[in-house]
């Protein structure tokens, strides 16, 4: 119900229609398409072997869609932006499915919510879907391999997802609009402009991701075992 009350036009990081020159827009599509295709293949494979994870995929799709168009005000900056949600999706259903989910969410937002553009959809999929999902997934797996608990690893994943997404957006924007201006100083300027908003929002996304992982661990440890998020032993201990 709280989500319903949150409905408000979002102002956020997706690159709007017409901002990127056509060759760059096409280039980012070319980068995004293979990952989306791999996501479709992974969905088909999962559907063939285990239908019981369908509600989990549905939940993640809704979470990514809602989170990525939910504006959150940042008082210190006087601006608002949104978390990505692809970190939690990558942890629970894998980075390839997370990319597919974010591509669908971004397409709906670009078509009906004036949120991101159709021509810039490829760039938005690369930043939020591809980089966000893999950054979150690697951070989670890396932290777990180093012996971190689920909560801490989830927090690191959310943080990495958010900051990596905005860093990629900065690179995409700078490479597309720079003209004759030097590339690195422009990237630095855009990153610095994002910092007051995204620094606290990254921490918030980390906390949200940790909370969601821990909640699912409490409610459905068997699902986390099946998705290889935790080991069989950890699942048995909890149950």
């Amino acid at each position, binding site marked *: 119900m709280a989500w319903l009350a949150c409905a408000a036009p979002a102002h956020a990081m997706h690159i709007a229609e017409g901002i*990127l020159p056509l060759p760059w827009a096409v280039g980012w599509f070319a980068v995004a398409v293979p990952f989306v295709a791999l996501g479709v293949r992974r969905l088909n494979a999962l559907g063939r072997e285990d239908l019981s994870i369908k509600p989990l995929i549905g939940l993640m799709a809704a979470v990514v869609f809602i989170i990525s*168009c939910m504006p959150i005000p940042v008082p210190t900056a006087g601006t608002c932006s949104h978390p990505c949600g692809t970190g939690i999706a990558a942890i629970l259903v894998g980075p390839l499915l997370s990319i597919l989910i974010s591509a669908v969410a971004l397409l709906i937002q670009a078509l009906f919510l004036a949120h991101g553009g159709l021509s810039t959809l490829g760039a938005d999929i690369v930043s939020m879907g591809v980089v966000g999902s893999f950054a979150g997934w690697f951070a989670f797996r890396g932290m777990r391999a180093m012996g971190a608990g689920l909560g801490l690893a989830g927090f690191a994943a959310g943080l990495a997802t958010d900051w990596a997404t905005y860093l990629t957006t900065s690179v995409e924007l700078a490479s597309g609009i720079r003209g004759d201006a030097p590339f690195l100083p422009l990237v630095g300027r855009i990153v610095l402009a994002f910092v007051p*908003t995204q620094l606290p929002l990254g921490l918030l996304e980390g906390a949200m991701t940790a909370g969601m992982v821990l909640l699912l661990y409490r409610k459905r440890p068997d699902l986390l075992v099946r998705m290889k998020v935790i080991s069989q032993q950890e699942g048995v201990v909890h149950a």
Partner: protein
Amino acid sequence: MPDRKRRLKIFLLHLVLLPTLLYTFYFFTLGPKPWTGVDEAVVEKIAGEHGREASPPLINTDQGDLLLFVFLLAGAVGGFVAGYSWRKLVSEKRRDS
């Protein structure tokens, strides 16, 4: 846990939580300007300085309160899907056990 100790813990929790919440709400009112999105404040601003302007979306819902309505609809559908999926996930667990 003895009842008195439990009540003291709840009291202390409220003593910390309530002022924190109140201060958070107050803090939000101190924002230097209306909540401009980073798309406007950063992306479109810097793109504009380099001669790239955002063009209107293909389906322009940014007219009057239409965009607000579309967001409400999207929030309702998304909230329903999330709630339904969560319920299925949790009820499956109950069925299994």
